[in-house]
Structure formats: C-alpha cells, structure tokens
C-alpha cells in the first residue's frame, strides 16, 4: 500500500466516525468508546490511527499532493460533564478542536474561517514551519477578521505530538477552549509498534457555579480541570487490552498549571516530548508524568494487570469539580452548636464538612444550576468522589468486545473487604488500639 492509499484509507477510517457529523459538531459525549473500533493500522509501518477520547480527528481530503482541512473558529456549546454546560469557543463546533493527524512530510493546506466575534489566528504549537505560517498576530500575519477565511500551507517536516491554538487574544481564546492536538506520525517508525494511540489534552477553566462562561480573567483559581475538555465523570474511559502496547500523548494548554498525571496499576516510559523522541537509553520507568504548560509528553506502557485503573492529575484540587475555597475549615466542628441558630433564620442550612468532605457528593444537596461542585461519578462500589482531571484505564482481555462502560469483575480473593473478627483475632490485630 503506497502512501497515498495509506492516507486515503486513514481518512476513510479515521473519518468513519465523522461521516454523519459535519465537523463532528453533533458528536454525543460518551456515545463512542474511547478506542478505535476496530483497531486499524492505517499509517506507515503499521501505525494505528490515534483516538481522541471525547473528541474527533479532523477530516483531510487529498488533492494534488496536499492534505486539505478546514478549521472553523466559532462559539460552541460544550458539556464538561453531565450537569455542567459552558458557552465556550472552539473549532468545528467542539473543544478541543479536531485532532490533526498526518504523517511526517505531509504538506497540508488548512483553511481557517473565523466565526468568532473578534479576530483570531492559528499558531501550530511546536511545529517547525515557515515563519509566515506561525500565526502570531501582528508578528507573522495580520489577524483573521470575523468572517474571513485564511489559508495556512506548510509541510510537517518532523514527527511528533504538537498542539494548535490562537495567537490573538490568547488569554481569552484559550481560556474559552480554543485548542487542539496535532499528531505527526513518523514516516519510518522505530521501536515496537503500539496497539493503541490516544490523545489527551489537559486544560483548566474557571467557571463559577451557576454561570456558563469560562472566566478568561482568572489567574489562579481554576475549578474545572479537564482531559479533552471533559471533567470526570464526563471523561470517556480508555479501553485497552492486557499485553497491548499503549501510547498516550498528553498536551497541556492550561493557563497556569502543570499537571502531574499519575497512573495506577502500571509503569510507563516517557518516549517523546514536543521536541522529539527521547532516546531509548534515556528513558526510565515512572508512574507519574509531569506535563508542563505549553508542552506535550508521550508515554508508552504495556499493562499486564486487568482491571479498572485510575489515572489522574495528582494535584488534589485538580480532581475536584468546582469546589471553592471561600469558607472556613469545618472539620471537627459540632454541627449541633451551629445548625439550630442558623436554621431558625435559614431553614435549609446544614453544616457540612465537619467530619470531612468525602461523602458530600452523595449528600445530594441542591446546588446552583449548571454546576457540578464536589461531584464525582458512580463506581461499582459507590461514588468515586474525584472529578476533574480524572479518568479510567480499562484493561481487558478482549478490549474489542468489552463494554467500555462496564466495570471489572474482581476474581475472588483479589479485592479488599471488611476484615472478619476471627481473622483480626488470629492475627493479633486490635482495632481499638490507642496510640499516643
């Protein structure tokens, strides 16, 4: 199969999910599992097409040796998680915009139409290209006015994982969700081929509970942390097979925060940065990869333990949804000393957090409309009280047929459970032991 056919097949396969969706605007969050269906090798050297959980790949049509795509910068209605919708900006009706997936050496012609209420540009973050295509407004080009369509044309000379975003009014446009990932497959891949190739873009937002518009002015207090603009439980799990080689490409266009992404149940090696491939000799095993602001990191691993494995940003506030910090610490307080007095004035008041905050997601307290404060998602053993930049890696024997929404069934004896009194006694454990 020559390269052109590769590309055509890739477009057909990658675009299959998009066939009925004009630019993917109508994609239903969570409707498709976060894995290729079926897994297909469509790029040189048997490289599989990337999967963008909760997202799509940009359709590219080939003409005269060019791959032609179209990005439309536009306002979008976006659901971060059930219960939280945002008035965002993005590309082709979504945030992040479609993943641009090409092969090293591909020349692309990307049309950019501006349907925003202000000018914009597109910067191809990390891509080495002619200066006039770099997209910095005022420096490399004039801004694209509302209603105008610009064309960018350049060659992806280097394989790697990159990003795209505006370089006009960056603070506002990125804060509102304008960003996307770029995957440039090597023409001649080295190393073991991967079976799964995922793209996850991290981002952070400030959306006051009860409001809809992310706040571009915020500098420190971000309360919605996302993978591909989705907060758990809105994030689609990643379904992989035991023994499969899995690649995850992280990109970070957060405003202010780096994200240490921690994996449970496996170790990985960081194989690429946005600067290029890391030599095999320089790689080392880790369980947490730090993805700095404005950078990409690519990790690879081979899971050998079945199960539902959490992976998430390890900054604890980055796995909370919209929780504020404008209140005193209530831990340890006696609610009976407070509630009667306050309830005589505000009957619906109830002191919270005096025994910790872990069970708040299940309390079902009425909250402002269009908000998901403190909410996590349902798990097989109760509520998962994390949100935000959290998702699940589902390692299955048969990933192609596994239900991506189903939970792992633990073999007997492989799950923590309540200790019986007899066992405690036999092992000399006194649960009432006191210390200090």
């Amino acid at each position: 199969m020559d390269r052109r056919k590769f590309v055509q097949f890739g477009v057909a396969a990658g675009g299959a999910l998009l066939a009925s969706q004009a630019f993917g605007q109508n994609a239903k969050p969570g409707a498709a599992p976060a894995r290729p269906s079926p897994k297909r090798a469509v790029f040189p050297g048997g490289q599989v097409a990337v999967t963008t959980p909760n997202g799509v790949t940009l359709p590219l049509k080939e003409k005269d040796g060019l791959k032609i795509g179209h990005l439309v910068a536009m306002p979008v209605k976006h659901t971060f998680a059930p219960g939280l919708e945002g008035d965002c900006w993005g590309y082709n009706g979504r945030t992040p915009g479609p993943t641009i997936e090409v092969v090293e050496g591909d020349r692309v012609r990307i049309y950019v139409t501006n349907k925003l209420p202000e000018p914009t540009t597109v910067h191809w973050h990390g891509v080495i290209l002619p200066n006039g295509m770099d997209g910095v407004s005022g420096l490399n080009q004039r801004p694209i006015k509302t209603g105008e369509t610009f064309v960018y044309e350049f060659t992806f000379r280097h394989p790697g994982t990159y990003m795209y975003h505006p370089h006009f009014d960056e603070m506002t446009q990125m804060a509102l969700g304008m960003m996307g990932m770029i995957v440039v497959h090597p023409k001649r891949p080295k190393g073991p081929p991967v079976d799964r190739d995922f793209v996850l873009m991290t981002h952070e937002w400030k959306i006051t509970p009860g409001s809809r518009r992310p706040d571009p002015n915020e500098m420190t207090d971000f309360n919605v942390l996302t993978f591909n603009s989705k907060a758990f439980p809105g994030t689609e799990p990643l379904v992989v097979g035991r023994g499969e080689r899995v690649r995850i490409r992280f990109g970070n266009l957060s405003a202010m925060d780096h994200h240490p992404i921690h994996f449970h149940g496996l170790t990985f090696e960081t194989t690429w940065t946005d600067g290029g491939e890391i030599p095999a000799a320089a790689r080392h095993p880790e369980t947490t990869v730090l993805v700095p602001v404005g950078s990409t990191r690519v990790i690879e691993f081979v899971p050998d333990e079945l199960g539902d494995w959490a992976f998430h940003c390890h900054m604890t506030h980055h796995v909370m949804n919209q929780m504020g910090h404008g209140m005193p610490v209530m831990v340890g307080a006696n609610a009976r000393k407070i509630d009667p007095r306050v309830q005589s004035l505000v009957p619906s008041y109830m002191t919270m957090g005096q025994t910790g905050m872990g069970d708040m997601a299940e309390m079902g307290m009425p909250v402002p409309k269009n908000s998901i404060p403190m909410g996590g998602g349902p798990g097989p053993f109760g509520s998962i009280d994390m949100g935000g930049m959290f998702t699940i890696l589902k390692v299955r024997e048969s990933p192609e047929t596994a239900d991506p929404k189903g939970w792992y069934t633990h073999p007997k004896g492989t799950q923590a459970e309540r200790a019986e009194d007899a066992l405690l006694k036999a092992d000399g454990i006194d649960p009432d032991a006191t210390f200090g």
Partner: protein
Amino acid sequence: MTTRPFFSFSALALALGLSAGCASASLPQHVGEVNDIFTARNRRDLAVSVPGEDEDWEKTAAEVPKLLGKPLDADGAVRIALAQNRELRAAFYEIGIARGRFVQAGLPPNPEIDLSVRRPNDPTQPLQLDIGIEYNLSGLLILPLRKGVAEAELAAERLRVAGQVLDMAYTTRAAFYTVQARQQELDLRDRALKAFQAGFAAAEELSRVGNLPDVDLATQRAAVESARVDVAEAENRLLDARETLNVALGLSGEQTRWSIEARLPDPPAEALVFERVEERAVASSFELQELDARMRVASKRAGLARTEGNLPHISGGFHGERDASVWEIGGHVTVGLPIFDRNQGTVLSARSEFGAQRERYLATATALRATVRTAQNRVESTGRRARHYREVVLPAREKALAETVLQYNAMQVSVFQVLDSQRQVTQTGLTYVETLLEYWNARAALDQILAGRHRGLALGPAGAPRTNLPSGGDSAAAGH
C-alpha cells in the same frame, strides 16, 4: 296718687330665666354641634363621644374599655382618642367660651335706677325723694349687630374645633402607625441580632476546634454586641412611640398596657386613583371655612363699629320727685353727639382685620393646594416604592439568599456569607417597613386634607430613611 312700680318682678324673673336658659349649653351640646358637622359630611367615624353631663367629666367613655380590651387597631385608637383626649375636650369647652360670648352679646342692656334723698335746710320741709330710671337705648339698638358678631365668632370656633378633631384623629392614626412600624423594626432588629448570634456561635465552635483565628472570632463578637445595642435602641424607639400614642389616646396607668397585633398593612396591589383632589380639598377645608367665618366676623365687627360710631349714644329715662306729698313725674333723653369719636380707629382695625383674613384665606388656599399635591405625590411615590420593595426587592433578596445557600452547598461561600445574605433580607425588610410607614402616613395625611385639614401634617422629607444594619454588619470575612 297711686304709686305703680316701673316694672313687675314677674317680668324681671322671666327675663332672668330666659337669660339663664340661653347660658345653659353644656359640653355634650358643644360636642353634638361639631358631630353634626361631621355627620353632614358623612364622617360619622369622627363623631366624638363624651359623658352625658359636665359633672361626669372625669368619667371614661363607655366604649374605651371595650376597645382597650383587645389588640388595638388604627380605627380603635382614633375612637379612643376622640373619646378620651383631654386636649380635645378642652377645645370643646372653648366652644362654650364662644357660646358664652354669643349669649352675652344677645343680652339687652340693663335699666339703671337712680334713687336720691335730700333733706332741705328748712326743717319744716319734708324729706325730698327722687327716683329715676335710665335705659341705654342705643345699646338696645346695636344689640342685633353685636349678637351677629358673636354668632359669627361662635361659628368660626366650631369650625376650629372640628379641625382639631381632625387633627386628633390624624395625630392618633400617625402615632399608631409609628407604633406598628417600631414594633416591626424591633422584630427585625432582633432578627438581625439573631443572625449575628448565629454567626458568633459558628465562629465560637470553629474557634474551639482550632479552625478560626481569634481576629475573626472577635469580629463576630463585636458585631453581636453592636447589634444588641441596635435592638436596645429600637426598643427605646418603640417605647417612645407608645408614649406618644398614649398621650394622643389620653391614657395613663393601667390603661397604657394595650397591645397591638396587626403589622402595618401592605399597600394596595393597585395604585389608588385620586380625582379632583385640589377641588375636594378646597371644598372641605375647615381652615378655609374658618377663615371665611373669621372674615365674616371681621366684616360684622367693622359694621358694628361703624354703626356704633355713627349712632349717637341715646339713653332715655323717667324720673319722679316726691315733693311734699305729691310726685312729680318726668322723662328725659340723653343724646351723645358723634362729633369726634365715631369709632374711626375701631372701624379701621376691623377692616384691616378683614383684609388680613382675606389674604390669609388666599394664602391658605395656595398652601392647601400645594400640600394636597405633595400628599398625593407622596402617596403615589411611597405606594410604588412599597410595592416595589414587597414585590421585587424582597423577593430578589430572598432569591439571593436562596442562591447563596446553593453556593454554600456548593462550598463556594461560608456560613458567614449565608448569614450576611440573610441579614440583607432583614435589611430590606427594615427599609420596607420604613417605606410602608411613610406610605400610611402619607395616606393619613391625604385623608386628613380631603377631610378638611392640611396644617400640621408630618409628611417629613421624601424617601424612607436608610436603615442600617448593626455596625458589625460586614462580617463575612470570618473564615476567609
């Protein structure tokens, strides 16, 4: 010669009896005359009740204990004031003063009898006896005019006292509204205190478990103590208002233990339509009618003075002289010549008084029209504001509180901010009460004007005074 008396004692007795009858008007009669004025105006609610006899002046009207036996309302308070207020009774006695002048003015001059005895130097001559009677004829002629002046003064006095009845009703109604407002203010201040106490309780508990710095605890404590002072001040304002109403009601001792239950009523849902208010106010004005009556008094007084000045003083009489054994009888007429004193000064004064009353009438009419427009504007403005507070601001504050609770549930804000939002509801309630008080005062004032009285209205400056939360109001910082 037969001696006959100049007048019979029976005629004298009749004259005395008639004059005594004219002077027998009592307090109930004065009250009845004023009540008749209100009855004619279809305002029986302003009828004053007093004991049946002057001798019972210290008695309490029968309806007063009944009205005091249950929680007072505004109409009941007015009834009590009209029955019990002693300033008002004093005003009714002043009608008696005017009536006394009227009766006095209608009495004819008394005849004068002159007796003299002379002993001649000649001892043979008998004792000389002279007897004469003299009567002021010009006084008799002028009597109808004097009576007319006094009658006009009596009419003016009735109108003045009727105006005082209105004043009393208005003052009482306004004082009652003030008591209601101050009671509500006290309740709301107490509610604000409870909010601060709740905040302090929360701060104390958080401090106890080591979650709150002392500065926040101290701030909460300071807010509670400031709010406590505000409650005490509101309590004092209520007590003052009660005493003002007690004065209006004429109550003291055990009778001051009355209570009220009702709150200040909300304003009507729809704005009231007032038509031809200026015309109605002018037509019903006791002040204008009194001034009109005073003009008539001045006019009559001028006429009287002019007549008195031009009419020669005439008196006539008869006299008898007993000389030896015979009576010599004769008569005489005395005529004063109006050459120099023709009452020119008195006439001038009376005419000037007439002019002054006329100008005062016009000035009063102008002021009356302005006052009625002011009152109407105030009723409409305060009514709109009160409805806006009730229908828009209060619900908005309550919505803000509900949303703050949701934000609290979402762990965005603290219990202190919830309580602060609740206090904003209370604050709005306080402003609403003040606006409501202004509205009902304005309504009472407009009613007062349309009933016939425009002076002494306590409309005050426009706009309800801004009620302030206790000085520690901005306490949401605790816990931040």
